């Protein structure tokens, strides 16, 4: 437990910063909604003049964009992008930080197993993300209530918002996996930004070409807000795929890290 607390403290600043960022982004984007909603017809006809490929790439669905849920589903794409960067940074830092700051010797010569170390660190990262999501969810819900132009199904808004947590868990696991495989990571940001944007662009391409298979290759498309709005449920195969990725990445990381030689600096 001492390690979990220590790690939480270490992530405290970045967790607060990212939470504030996500809240700020959702507040800012949703505060634009009343403007769009007021001139709904005009806005829709404007959108219709744009090429369909562009609309698809940025995730606009003309039929629903002027309802609060539809608008939220649209802006959520950018929120999940931010969230993914946070999670990937966190995941990649978990172990590479110890190597970079050369503190691995400190922990590993204490009477704890490597499994305990990894578990504590993962748990701390999980808690950090959980805190971020609880606060984000509250902010998004309140903001939606404030700007709504009619009744909407709160449960669907919640369901969409919770996918932020799912996406973050996937990216955290990926980041963690990368940090275990790559021996010495000098700087976390290029790796996490690169990976996240690569997946994001894959997602955009997939949406443009309408190629369903591409969805499997990017976590950003595992939880389709349009589907959630229609069916009030998640798509089973993608939910399992996401879970599978998280479990596999973390399991392999455990195995590799337990066998790893920790070299002198």
């Amino acid at each position: 437990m001492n390690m979990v607390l220590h790690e939480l403290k270490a992530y405290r600043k970045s967790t607060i910063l990212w939470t504030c960022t996500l809240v700020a982004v959702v507040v800012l984007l949703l505060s634009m909604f009343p403007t769009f909603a007021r001139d709904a017809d005009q806005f829709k006809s404007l959108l219709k003049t744009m090429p369909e490929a562009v609309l698809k790439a940025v995730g606009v669905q003309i039929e629903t964009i002027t309802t609060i849920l539809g608008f939220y589903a649209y802006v959520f794409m950018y929120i999940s992008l931010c969230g993914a960067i946070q999670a990937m940074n966190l995941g990649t830092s978990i172990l590479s930080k110890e190597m970079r700051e050369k503190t691995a010797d400190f922990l590993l010569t204490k009477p704890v197993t490597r499994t305990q170390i990894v578990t504590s660190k993962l748990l701390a990262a999980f808690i950090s993300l959980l805190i971020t999501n609880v606060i984000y969810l509250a902010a998004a819900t309140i903001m939606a209530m404030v700007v709504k132009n009619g009744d909407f199904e709160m449960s669907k808004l919640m369901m969409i918002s919770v996918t932020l947590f799912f996406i973050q868990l996937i990216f955290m696991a990926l980041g963690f996996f990368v940090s275990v495989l790559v021996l010495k990571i000098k700087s976390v940001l290029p790796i996490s930004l690169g990976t996240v944007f690569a997946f994001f662009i894959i997602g955009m391409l997939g949406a443009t070409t309408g190629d369903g298979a591409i969805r499997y290759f990017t976590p950003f498309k595992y939880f389709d807000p349009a589907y959630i709005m229609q069916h009030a449920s998640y798509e089973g195969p993608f939910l399992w795929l996401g879970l599978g990725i998280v479990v596999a990445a973390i399991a392999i990381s455990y195995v590799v890290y337990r066998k790893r030689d920790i070299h002198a600096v």
Partner: protein
Amino acid sequence: MHVIEVNNLTKTYGSARGITNLSFQVEQGEIFGFIGPNGAGKSTTIRTLLGLIYPTSGSAKIFGKDCIQYGPEIKKEIGYLPSEVFYYDNMKVKDLLQYSASFYKKDCRKRIAELAGIMDLDLNKKIDDLSLGNKKKVGIVQGLLHEPKLIILDEPTSGLDPLMQQRFFDLLEAENKRGATILFSSHILSEVQRLCDRVAIIKEGKLIQLEKISTLQENNYKRFKLETKAPVSPDYFQLSGVNELKVEGTTVSFLYKGNVNAMMSKIAAIDLANILVEEPDLEEIFMHYYEKED
């Protein structure tokens, strides 16, 4: 009981560094020196004992238990001070030491205060702001705060001023009296000579010699460098115990092992401009071990 028992320990990293078939034992209550030049494999051995790296073959036991299999259990009673100390920068010394103490199921507060007092360490400073020597002190306190039964030190004195070095050695001797076994790795012979009961000399990953310090001291070499006012004949210093004699005009240098009085009277007979008598560095000692071994 052997506190440390190393059996045919081998660790290879690709090709470069590593250790080969290393075997030695450290007895309960002794201060065991572990010396060799940089890159000899001292740290590799220590890191294997601590389970930071895994042996390629062979095994090591601490307190009679395999150091990989029973790692966490063994480490409760080990204090380790690495050669280079890096700690979480944005923490205060006090917080770091408390974090370190939280891994051991005992109350270490009193001991932390004691050790900090002895080492003259300010507990309220941020680790960021500490000099290298002060960081080293944090490392020392961190390694000793749980009153370990085995203390492993990897070149512990670098960065400490002579006064602190002295206090640190006194501290180690006190710990040793209390019953702690100490494994002291160093490349500085004089430190090891001062503190240790026995010493293992290691070079290029192999154990060259395992001796009592008293034996080693009998083989104590001194390096002499003389500047004479008039050129001396090379034959003048050709006596037993003299090695590596070099005479170039008025400068003479050699290694000497034997009765110093005999040598001093010999030197007193010539007219000197300057004289320097020093401990040969470890490399030179090693060279002699090699020559004897071959």
